[in-house]
């Protein structure tokens, strides 16, 4: 059974803290994505990566950075968490050339106090 896993289901952090969200996929996919999902705003792309050590900004990269040191792992970093980053964070992966079939992880519900 193919899988995308995320390090935490629920996370509570304080304003100003550095936050790491980890995503691991076991499908040998080249492409990996980070989204946030908010009521009324839907899914918004933060960053994506099409290869190890490569990254591209999505629609809302401000306040976030990413790291892809290994093919199976894609990390999202909130350098200094703020309350407006409270959200559901979803990781996804796809094979190269098959962006239409994205495999999503279960999500991390992050609350910043």
């Amino acid at each position, binding site marked *: 059974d193919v899988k*995308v896993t995320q390090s935490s289901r629920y996370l509570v952090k304080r304003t100003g803290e550095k936050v790491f969200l980890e995503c691991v996929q076991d499908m040998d996919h080249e492409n990996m994505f980070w989204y946030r999902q908010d009521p*009324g*705003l*839907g*899914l918004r*792309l933060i960053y*994506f990566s099409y290869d190890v050590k490569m990254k591209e900004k*999505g629609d809302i990269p401000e306040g976030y950075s990413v790291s892809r040191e290994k093919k199976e792992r894609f990390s999202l970093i909130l350098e200094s968490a703020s309350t407006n980053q409270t959200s559901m964070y*979803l990781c*996804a992966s796809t094979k*190269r*050339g*098959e*962006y*239409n*079939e*994205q*495999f*999503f*992880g*279960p*999500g991390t519900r992050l609350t910043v106090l």
Partner: protein
Amino acid sequence: QKEVEQDPGPLSVPEGAIVSLNCTYSNSAFQYFMWYRQYSRKGPELLMYTYSSGNKEDGRFTAQVDKSSKYISLFIRDSQPSDSATYLCAMIRMNRDDKIIFGKGTRLHILP
């Protein structure tokens, strides 16, 4: 005009009814059209996808694309309580390596 528009619902229908979910879009370059289903507290999963115009059927689900009207639909026949979820339409332009654009999702409740 937003690239993809989808009514957020919620849509409540009785068990056994036919459900119709819809999206409109503005960019005529979209060629791949997808429907994702998202259960509460889970990530979305791909339900069906269609290339270009026409219909595609998979069991109780039918996806329909009308490119002339820039309108896509998902029909669910004989709806079940287990179909209760949020349904997100999504689409990509000509190049399949392009960025996927999601609708905001429609919440569907099937009433037993």
